[in-house]
């Protein structure tokens, strides 16, 4: 039996899903055995995989979140392009079967798909409907000013530690914000068209959002919730009645929230032209590491085929809140009438396809993005803590990011 190691970053309800998939696959055949191992947060998992590769014992499959894409793509010898692998293994693989937003994100300029889309998400606004009711907020807020208003009311209604909040701060406040408002995050179509890109997210609109949040942070109408999703519990526990975070949060909300909830589209500034545009995908894809044997690749390919099964994808989507990644699965769920029953489960899909994507909303691809996110987070934190003006913080975030990009360019181009 050939063992296939699969490193992932899924916890809670999603962890159950991963384990179940592995178990089901193992039960479905006897030649291969997929072993799933939780390796910590997304950055931790990526870190572990890189370290393991350098040490010569990389796993077969790694779940890498979307911002690690450029890093993985540029690691030519370290990865096995999924398309190529599937072909060599003789498994059917058609990039066109996937949602275009996803295919675009994980393919090279030439259209070669390098990783296997697994759990794609988008950002939505989770709201605690009971709380809104309590605070007499009749409608789910649509725009940022609405959100601020609702936050104030919620605070007055007893949610005094946190009117609203945001998980994955850089993802929400910079990346999704840029796409949703059709603002460039960086040049060269946010890096999709080449490494020699420059960051641009210190525009007046970006600064305005941060300025507003800084003001609201003072009395906790808005309250910072960290760089990743480690504080998502603040929503489920009822502490923060409004939280922007991944649609993949669904499984845990369902399991833990003791109130009525909904997933609404992200808010926008109505005075920004073109807003809302469309959102970009988040979540993660599965990367196959290089240097493995042919039988192993064959096993991986079989596993991927197993994963892309339409029924399975449809079920995954329904259970986890991640997107149905194939068009077929999407159609199937639609056809089942699921969205009529639970309209807000379609929210992330609607966001993604809200408008025809532009240069600014197709996706993004920056090297060393993981470190950049930390830098951006630091700057956001500095602004929220009152150490820097919002303008200064974003300017610094841009210039530090650019320096990092230049370094990446230097190592990646050789």
């Amino acid at each position: 039996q050939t063992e296939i190691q699969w490193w992932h970053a899924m916890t809670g309800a999603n962890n159950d899903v991963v384990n179940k998939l592995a178990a089901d696959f193992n039960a479905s055949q006897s030649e291969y055995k997929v072993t799933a191992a939780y390796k910590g947060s997304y950055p931790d998992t990526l870190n572990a995989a890189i370290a393991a590769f350098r040490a010569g014992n990389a796993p077969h499959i790694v779940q890498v979140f979307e911002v690690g894409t450029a890093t993985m793509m540029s690691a030519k010898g370290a990865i096995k392009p999924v398309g190529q692998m599937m072909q060599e293994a003789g498994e059917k693989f058609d990039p066109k079967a996937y949602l275009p937003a996803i295919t675009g994100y994980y393919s090279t300029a030439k259209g070669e798909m390098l990783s296997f889309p697994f759990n794609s998400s988008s950002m939505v606004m989770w709201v605690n409907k009971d709380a809104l009711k309590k605070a007499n907020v009749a409608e789910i807020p649509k725009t940022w000013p609405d959100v601020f208003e609702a936050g104030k009311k919620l605070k007055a209604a007893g949610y005094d530690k946190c009117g609203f909040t945001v998980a994955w701060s850089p993802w929400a406040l910079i990346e999704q914000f840029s796409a949703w408002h059709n603002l460039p995050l960086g040049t060269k179509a946010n890096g999709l068209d080449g490494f020699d890109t420059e960051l641009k997210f210190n525009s007046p609109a970006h600064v305005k959002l941060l300025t507003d949040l800084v003001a609201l942070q003072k009395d906790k109408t808005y309250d910072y919730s960290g760089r990743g999703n480690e504080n998502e519990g603040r929503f489920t526990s009822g502490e923060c009645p409004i939280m922007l975070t991944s649609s993949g949060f669904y499984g845990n909300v369902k399991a833990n929230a003791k109130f009525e909830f909904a997933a609404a589209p992200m808010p926008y500034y109505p005075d920004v032209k073109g807003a809302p545009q469309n959102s970009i995908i988040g979540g993660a894809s599965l990367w196959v590491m290089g240097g493995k044997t042919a039988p192993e690749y064959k096993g991986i390919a079989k596993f991927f085929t197993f994963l892309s099964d339409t029924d399975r994808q449809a079920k995954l989507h329904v259970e986890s809140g991640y997107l149905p990644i194939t068009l077929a699965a999407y159609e199937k769920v639609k056809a089942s009438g699921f969205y009529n029953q639970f309209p807000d489960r379609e929210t992330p899909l609607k966001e993604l396809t809200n408008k025809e994507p532009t240069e600014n909303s197709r996706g993004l691809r920056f090297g060393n993005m993981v470190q950049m996110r930390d830098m951006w987070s630091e700057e956001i934190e500095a602004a929220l803590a009152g150490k820097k003006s919002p303008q200064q913080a974003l300017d610094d975030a841009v210039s530090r990011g650019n320096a990092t990009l230049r370094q990446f360019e230097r190592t990646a181009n050789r």
Partner: protein
Amino acid sequence: MEKRSVYTNKLLPYLLLAPQLVITLVFFYWPASQAVWMSFRIEDAFGISTEFVGFENYVTLFGQRSYYESMWTTLVFSLAVTILAMSFSLLLAVMADKQIRGGSVYRTLLIWPYAVAPAIAGVLWLFMFQPSLGMIGRGLIAAGVPWNPMLNGDHALLLVILAAAWKQISYNFLFFLAGLQSIPKSLIEAAAIDGAKPARRFWTIIFPMLSPTTFFLLVVNIVYVFFDTFGIIDAITHGGPAKATETLVFKVYSDGRLGGDLGGSAAQSVVLMVIVIALTAIQFRYVERKVTY
């Protein structure tokens, strides 16, 4: 000091030394030299392409504001933990030294935090000071203190300092107590006869006599803060917010973590090694000197 009488076998001593030397060479010197080698190169995350760049990593490092900030953080952190832990344990040790009865009971009640892993200490303090569910964190907010270690760097640093100092109390206490007990009673008696009141006895006799212990603890505490607090920081703040709790060691880890900057991280390691070797040398000289005291 050397032994007067020794053995003169030719091969045996090498055999006896071999295990330790081999392990030291393989797991210490070789990696250390690798770190030096790496610090002169830049590399992509996966180590697929590398380039020799001379001192560029060092130049970049010392050109980075964040590096100096990290140094500053480390310094503040070290001093705060050291002063806090040392003064608190000195107070306790002086009190315990007075208590002939019950002294050992107090010692028992005070030494066990030494056994708590730093990471766990971090978890314990986080649990108390977490603003939304921590007992003390909530208490502070209820009392009108805008307690927010998630965002406020000073709060985060304070929390990390408290946890780190807490863990270090036992250690300092034991050494101070041992130091106090090794001061000949006759010195205190002589001072009493010489007309020195208790406070004056403490500052003119006991405290100066403790100075070797104090100095030793100073070095040990600084080294402790440098390295052993990694677990505390990682558990409580991950170096944030906005790098407010990023010590030099944490920076080595976080810069090298994603392989983004292995060369720079290695350069930092080298700088750290130099610092530690210097500290060791100082301490060693001091230990040697202390013997005569």
